[in-house]
């Protein structure tokens, strides 16, 4: 083995005594390889994360002017235009029949009902003052439920709860996928004419909103609600009875309401 001068001057190379020493691992080339791979991993992950978050946040800026694509704005406006809303109640105060809906804004069946049956009931009964509908929002599915519900209740302070509820259902995402982002809610708010979206966003954590949520949850418990959507129906101001339906289509609701109106 050829010895270099430097090594020859050192009497003992301790690590080389027992084993054949391999080439030192910390060569410049290895350091470079490690650095390049590490940098590529880091840059790739960070870059993808930033791009991904931008995509979700739709523009990224926190301004509130940017809106995600929200479908159904004009339809919902057309459906609910000029119908009185107070808090969670849609319709005239003196409407003879009251329908209470227990719902979770993430529940797909609630969305089915909201998109199929609710418009029929609004057009046929609420608009002419014969029915009032009260929304009691629950948030048992997950965090997205609560985020959306808080926004809806906050919009209720401006008399726009049902608009927000209907738009959330129209644009409902997959359960607990994190679809209810601030940008989503801001976009929903912006799609409701006459609603101050910033005010709605600010009011989401208000004590009134939390109180309304707790009230609805307590009412659901005392009414024995075990799933959503669940309904109560009865004469306004009188005893409301659970309405058991075999399907969420409008027919059974119509029949039950007609019976109360006729009787």
């Amino acid at each position, binding site marked *: 083995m050829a010895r270099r001068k430097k090594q020859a001057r050192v009497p003992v190379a301790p690590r080389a005594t027992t084993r054949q020493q*391999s080439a030192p*691992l910390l060569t410049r080339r290895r350091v470079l390889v490690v650095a390049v*791979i590490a940098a590529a*991993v880091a840059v790739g992950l960070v870059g*993808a994360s930033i791009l*991904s978050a931008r995509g*979700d*946040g739709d523009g990224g800026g926190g301004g509130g002017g940017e809106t995600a694509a929200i479908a159904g704005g004009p339809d919902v406006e057309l459906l609910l235009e000029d119908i009185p809303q107070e808090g969670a109640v849609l319709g005239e105060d003196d409407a003879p029949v009251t329908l209470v809906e227990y719902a979770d804004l993430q529940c797909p069946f609630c969305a089915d009902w909201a998109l199929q049956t609710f418009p029929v009931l609004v057009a046929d009964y609420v608009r002419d003052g014969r029915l009032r509908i009260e929304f009691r929002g629950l948030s048992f599915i997950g965090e997205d439920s609560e985020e959306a519900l808080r926004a809806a209740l906050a919009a209720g302070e401006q008399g726009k709860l049902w608009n927000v509820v209907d738009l959330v259902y129209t644009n409902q995402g997959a359960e607990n996928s*994190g679809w209810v982002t601030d940008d989503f809610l801001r976009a929903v708010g912006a799609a409701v004419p006459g609603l101050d979206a910033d005010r709605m966003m600010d009011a989401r954590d208000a004590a009134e909103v939390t109180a309304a949520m707790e009230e609805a949850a307590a009412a659901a418990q005392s009414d024995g609600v075990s799933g959503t959507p669940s309904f109560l129906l009865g004469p306004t101001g009188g005893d409301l009875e659970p309405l058991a339906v075999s399907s969420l289509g409008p027919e059974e609701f119509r029949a039950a309401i007609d019976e109360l109106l006729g009787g």
Partner: protein
Amino acid sequence: MSDRALRIAVGVLALAGTGIAAYLTYTKYADATIACATGGCETVQDSEYAEILGLPVPVLGLVGYLAIFATAWFAGDTARVAGAALALGGLAFSVYLIFVQVFAIEAYCQWCLASDAVMALLAVATVARLRRPSAT
């Protein structure tokens, strides 16, 4: 510390990281509540930074830790280089994620921070491995 000892250290740390990532992956998909002393875990997990191109960050962590664990299994030079590169890349990404928690999400997730600590230790151990002579 011998290469063998470092390999064991890397393996144990990588398993700890795998455990953390697996727990967070589980809570993500099962929608279970995260045991969270810092209070911000759900906020972090539900933030727009919690997924990268549709893939939850904990899943990426899981893959990363398992890959580093695999490098501890082998004694060869390629494994050492790959281990150090992955751990250093992972550490850089962890630092980025800490910044995201502090400045973008403004909430902290103890599991994420624990994972960051594990990744930092892994970076130290895998780099130390690079400096050791080969065992074979």
